[in-house]
């Protein structure tokens, strides 16, 4: 039987305490609202999803044992696992699933999953067939629907039907660990759930310490005060990469930066200039310099190499200054100056500097405006957000299990994250086709067309998709992170 979302076999020593450093949860731990890595990591310690999105981006059963679409992919039916118990002792039934998903799809609920379900699943369309079968009636056919309610959708941990919004009191999930103690802003500890359906839980205890910054976590790991840093980025962790006492768990992911160029206003309203800009970047060098190679190259579309649906036959864009200059000349531009607005986050300032230097080659003078994240996003609606309003900007996007959302919101006409103000009916149509496609080969075919179109238009530069990295002390085994910063520890051992 499928036991746990585990790649490595549980060979570690049982009964150890695993100490994890992670980002401090930004607010109350409520599965409905949580939207930050610290919070979702807490949810996932006690809660479980219907399906689990594995490191290779294929789905595995979790609380659902099987699922299938109807013919056109507009209705998906899930069969639930039998004999699963919540920590409170209650048995999991279809009612719990219906209530959980409906809660997340309800626009009145401050649900963080609302943007995922938008145009996919509406409130009231999740229906109980019997105690262990649930059917999802979608707004439109969707070949990738199971991903939307998988561990990819970190809000979608299954809660009891009578959940009151008091998660921090109950921590009532079905997972391998139950809460021991949670102190906001400080840390949390968990102990094994003896009734877990998946069998034996290896550690005796897990302890999470919250940090506001990566550096102290790195230092704490090196100082031996924690065993795992749940997520590291290469910047500031170069020291760990060569450290013989440290192991790095690397997961290929679709995490990336979108460098948008507004297609509706100068200076980037001509697609040749946008292409010229994209041609200045030496992507392999960037990947080496910023990520020590721990990254895939981007080809200016959301199709990351990690996605099975990505069409790899489309040629990779490379640095080509001559062509870029030619394009500039064709437009009659001798260069201009423009401000690149971006966030104070991870490697982004460095990347911005590299863009700045690269653009110089074709006479584009880039000024940098690097803001704190909240200032950059502002109110996150058009007209009140540097993110959505700036002519030239760079935004951080986390990993997604499928490219669907990334194809739609940032690029489709009227997309709510369409900072590039890109409007292309042909593209919109292709995306609709892609989303509805149920089998991989047709998905790949459509992907090829989309990739080609985006290379031609280049509203957004996707230069890289970097790997998700978790650092552990040597001797830590069995810890399994996901590319969205979850961390499964039921098989972990601290040696």
């Amino acid at each position, binding site marked *: 039987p499928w036991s746990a979302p585990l790649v490595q076999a549980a060979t570690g020593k049982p009964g150890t305490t695993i100490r994890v450093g992670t980002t*401090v949860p*930004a*607010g*109350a731990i*409520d599965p409905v*609202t949580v*939207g*930050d890595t610290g919070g979702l990591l807490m949810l996932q310690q006690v809660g479980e999803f219907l399906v689990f999105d594995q490191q290779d981006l294929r789905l595995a059963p979790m609380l659902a044992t099987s699922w299938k679409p109807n013919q056109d992919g507009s209705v998906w039916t899930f069969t639930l696992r039998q004999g699963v118990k919540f920590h409170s002792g209650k048995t999991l039934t279809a009612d719990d699933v219906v209530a959980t998903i409906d809660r997340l799809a309800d*626009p*009145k*609920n*401050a*649900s*963080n999953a*609302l*943007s995922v379900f*938008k145009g996919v699943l509406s409130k009231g369309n999740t229906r109980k067939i019997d105690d262990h079968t649930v059917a999802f009636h979608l707004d439109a056919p969707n070949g990738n629907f199971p991903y939307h309610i998988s561990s990819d959708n970190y809000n979608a941990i299954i809660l009891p039907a009578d959940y009151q919004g008091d998660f*921090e009191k109950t921590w009532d999930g079905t997972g391998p660990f139950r809460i021991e*103690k949670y102190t*906001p*802003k*400080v*840390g949390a*500890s968990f102990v094994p759930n003896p009734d877990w359906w998946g069998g034996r839980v290896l550690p005796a205890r897990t302890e999470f*310490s919250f*940090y*506001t*910054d990566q*550096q*102290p976590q790195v*230092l*704490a790991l*090196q*100082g*031996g*005060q924690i065993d795992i840093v749940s997520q590291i980025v290469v910047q500031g962790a170069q020291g760990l990469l060569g450290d013989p006492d440290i192991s790095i768990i690397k997961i290929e992911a679709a995490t990336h930066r979108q460098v948008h160029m507004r297609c509706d206003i100068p200076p980037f309203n001509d697609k040749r200039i946008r292409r010229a800009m994209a041609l200045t970047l030496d992507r392999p060098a960037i990947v080496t310099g910023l990520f020590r190679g721990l990254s895939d190259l981007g080809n200016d579309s959301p199709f990351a190499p990690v996605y099975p649906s990505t069409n790899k036959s489309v040629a990779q864009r490379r640095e080509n200054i001559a062509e870029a200059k030619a394009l500039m000349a064709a437009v009659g531009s001798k260069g201009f100056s423009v401000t690149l607005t971006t966030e104070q986050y991870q490697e982004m300032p460095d990347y911005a500097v590299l863009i700045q230097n690269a653009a110089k080659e074709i006479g584009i003078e880039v000024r940098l405006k690097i803001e*704190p994240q*909240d*200032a950059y*996003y*502002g*109110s*996150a*609606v058009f007209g009140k*957000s540097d*993110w959505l309003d700036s002519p030239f900007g760079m935004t951080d996007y986390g990993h997604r299990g499928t490219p669907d959302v990334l194809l739609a*919101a940032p690029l489709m006409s009227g997309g*709510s*994250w369409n900072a590039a103000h890109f409007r292309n009916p042909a593209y919109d149509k292709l995306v609709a086709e892609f989303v509805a496609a149920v089998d991989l080969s047709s998905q790949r075919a459509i992907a090829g067309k989309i990739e080609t179109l985006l290379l031609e238009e280049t509203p957004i530069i996707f230069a890289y998709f970097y790997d998700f990295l978790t650092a552990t002390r040597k001797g830590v085994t069995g810890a399994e992170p996901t590319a969205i910063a979850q961390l499964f520890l039921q098989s972990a051992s601290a040696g």
Partner: protein
Amino acid sequence: MRSGWGAWFARRISLSLLTLFLLSLVVFAGGQLLPGNVGRTILGPLADARAVAALNHQLGVDRPAIVQYLGWIGGLLHGNMGESLEFRSPVAPFIGAALVKSLKLAAVAFMIVVPLSIGGGVVAALKAGTAIDRTISLAGLSLTIIPEFVSSIVVILLFGIWLRILPISASWPEGAGPLDQLRHLIPPAIPLVVIQFGYIARMARAGTIEALEADYTRTAILKGLPRALVVQRHVLRNALLPTITVIATQTAYLVGGLVVVETLFRYQGIGSLILTAARGKDFPMLEGGILTVGAVYIGATLIADALAVLVNPRLAPEMTG
């Protein structure tokens, strides 16, 4: 003068309350300037606008600002500091915990720096002009100007990573005893000591030199008192008054201003609490945190002033002014 104390305290306290009230207004007005809104901050930039609106409504931050402020201050008058918007639970426990932590760190820093710097300053003054004096003064000057983030990193690398003799996180494990807590507090206290040492030592030195040249010291010397007694009884009592005041004014910084140190040493003091509250637009938390720092500062200066009067009753008439 005795009856003056009551009036003095009453006046000081009412002035302090006025200050705190103004402070809360300033913070509130300042908070309005912060970009974005709470709902957006909690749910993140990519969340659906309907969810954001729903959350803002739930939290009551879609009401007019003045209504929110009045509601908050009304609660405060009933001893209720309000609920955190981000954590959706009362702010008092958060602030209480952070305050205790900040005070502990400040106390440890003071415990190290006060004897060290006053001792240093006094010795420098007694040996004024000698090599000892110059060494102490120069050390003070050099240390004071090392930015916290520089000295903190040095401390972490040196004691935490290379020598491994001190923890690199200031947060002690659950249930740690006082000694263990102290061990955890020493590393973050070091940068603070480094910054404060020169400042306090300099004050102590100047005060001591002045008192050493004062007529009353001459009077004492002429009484034939042993030098140690002259210094202890006549010089130090007067010399250290300004130093006390200086130390008191440092509390605002030590209790609320340690963003860098708290971040680097992973310590959940008031400084980082205020900062995260501000970035999260968590207004009740922000108000509570800042008012707490304000109250600590005002309290410390009050105590310092009262102490000064106790030590030197001549300052008492000023109390009425």
